[in-house]
């Protein structure tokens, strides 16, 4: 943390390398959603227009697979980053779901209906962030596996019966839809519409948040940084 950041009351929340990953995820997921849902809802006129725009089913498939390969590369990089890098390992620790997250969730409910006086005090990531992270992570893994099965259909056919591939296709489509819904709605609320960040939490570009925001939204992280003398 540089002095300039301290002076302006800014705290680095995400490093550049870390920021790059969700950015890639966003772009790639959008491409995958547009190309994928066009196929999933191919009887819909809008979907047909999209397929034509993409240059027919063949080109649609190529675009979808290029984006998929990049997404999987991003996923692999992310797994290595989280498991083995000095920067990533603490992040993974912070993101682990613990008993405390359930308590936090229940306390926030109680607080909002007026049954508790204190709002739960979050660390770097609260239950909302963790839910979104693990939802997206699980979705990406599942979609990647089923996607691979369908892509390498000639290989899959050696040992998989057709009904397994049928299931893979349904799972692939609906898991994609699920991931899209989680990311779209939950994300929309958490980092855009939530009163504390409206209209947008800029940290996805700058990587920084204000110390005051951190004190209010993630008090435990604020205190930890303070203890470490970083604030």
């Amino acid at each position, binding site marked *: 943390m540089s002095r300039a950041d301290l002076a302006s009351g800014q705290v680095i929340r995400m490093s550049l390398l870390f920021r790059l990953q969700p950015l890639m995820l966003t772009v790639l997921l959008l491409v995958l959603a547009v190309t994928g849902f066009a196929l999933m809802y191919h009887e819909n006129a809008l979907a047909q227009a999209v397929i034509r725009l993409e240059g027919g089913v063949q080109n649609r498939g190529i675009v979808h697979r290029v984006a998929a390969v990049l997404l999987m590369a991003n996923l692999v990089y992310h797994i290595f980053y989280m498991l083995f890098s000095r920067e990533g390992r603490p992040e993974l620790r912070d993101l682990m779901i613990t008993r405390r997250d359930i308590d936090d969730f229940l306390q926030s409910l109680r*607080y*909002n209906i007026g049954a508790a006086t204190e709002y739960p005090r979050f660390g770097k990531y609260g239950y909302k962030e963790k839910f979104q992270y693990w939802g997206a992570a699980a979705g990406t893994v599942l979609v990647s596996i089923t996607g691979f099965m369908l892509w390498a259909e000639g290989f899959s056919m*050696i040992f998989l019966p057709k*009904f397994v591939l049928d299931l893979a296709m349904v799972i692939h489509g*609906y898991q994609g*839809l*699920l991931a899209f819904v*989680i990311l779209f*709605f939950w994300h929309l*609320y958490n980092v855009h519409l939530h009163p504390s960040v409206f209209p947008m939490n800029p940290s996805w570009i700058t990587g920084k948040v204000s110390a005051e925001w951190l004190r209010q939204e993630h008090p435990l992280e604020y205190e930890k940084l303070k203890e470490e003398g970083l604030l």
Partner: protein
Amino acid sequence: MKRTSRRTLAATVAAAALFAAGHALAATPGVGECLDCHGDKTIEKSLPGGRTQSLYVDLAVYRQSVHGKGSCVTCHADAKAPHDKLGKVNCGKCHGDAEKSYAGSTHGMMHAKGNTEVPGCDGCHGKHDILKPTNPKSKTFRLNIAGTCLSCHKDRALEARYSHLPDHKLIAAYEQSVHGMAVKKSGLTGSAVCPDCHGNHGILPADQPKSATHRQNIPTLCGKCHAGILEQYEKSVHGKGLRAGIAESPVCTDCHGEHTIVKASDPSSPVSSRNIPKTCSACHEKEAISTRYALPKKRFSSYMDSFHGIAVEYGMTKAANCASCHGIHEILPSGDPASPVNPANLPRTCGKCHPNAGPNFAKGVVHVEVSPKKAMGVFAVRMFYTIFISALVILFVLHVGLELYGRWNRRRAAGQGGKEGRP
């Protein structure tokens, strides 16, 4: 040879007789005498309405005609020189079989009722200029006959006058069909021309059971040329159905079209890779037909939802269509051990395109109809996700609503105190 010599003999005898008669009855004219008047190019008769009709006979054309060696009075038996209006020429005097068959045809029956617009013999064969059908200049030569029929059947005014006539465009579509093009462009005499299917003198509309083009007769009709295909068709479920008297069972024209018929490789063909799902489903997506013959339902929609269906819909014609798996003319029910979609044969059938698809792959249905009975797995997964995603969205909305409610509530409570609570 024998026949020709006999005919020559008959002609000679007739000529001799005429020659003798000519001397006996000066009123019976020879060709030369007829031509004294009818050789004049300006000779004509008046018709009602101020129109005129030429009575000129071109001797050279007549001499080259199939009857050119004969005499005028053979046909115009009541002709004298000079003469008034002559009686009708009766071709049946010599061509008895043709006349009999014509009398039973739709043209003949209307003609007998006094309709003068339907073709009589001369309508198709000509008058003084009649040539043998084998003569390339003949109106009934194989390469010319379509033009002869279409000279009336392409006529829009005629179509309007006779409401039972098919659309002139439909009939004229023959010219662009694979048969018509073979005649017109490639000059093939082996290609089908109008009388090959419809018959010549005995032509009848297709809705009459005796008609050559009646549904029940179509396979045999097409099989006259496409014998190998007919053999396959007769063994198929469609062919057997038709022979068992099921009129709904498809015949050649139901899939291929009739006058519009084009090659299967032509994208506009109803049996092209792109169009075949629609063509088959004209029957196989019909609830009534599926119920009546206890056939599996939703064949079209389940196909169109598959990778094969989507690929074909968007023009990747190498993807499997109905015929790729089920066969074409030799199509059999899946219960038949010879059917390519019999469970025992599926690995081989899928293997035509997917070499890795072995017996293991063939487990499970091909047309995935998403219902608990037909595809429980897919149905359950779909149901799970639908409920899960819906529930999640509802919970999101509730959570957001609750937070906003709490915030609003605290703000109201803190109104007097001034200090704003947590969001």
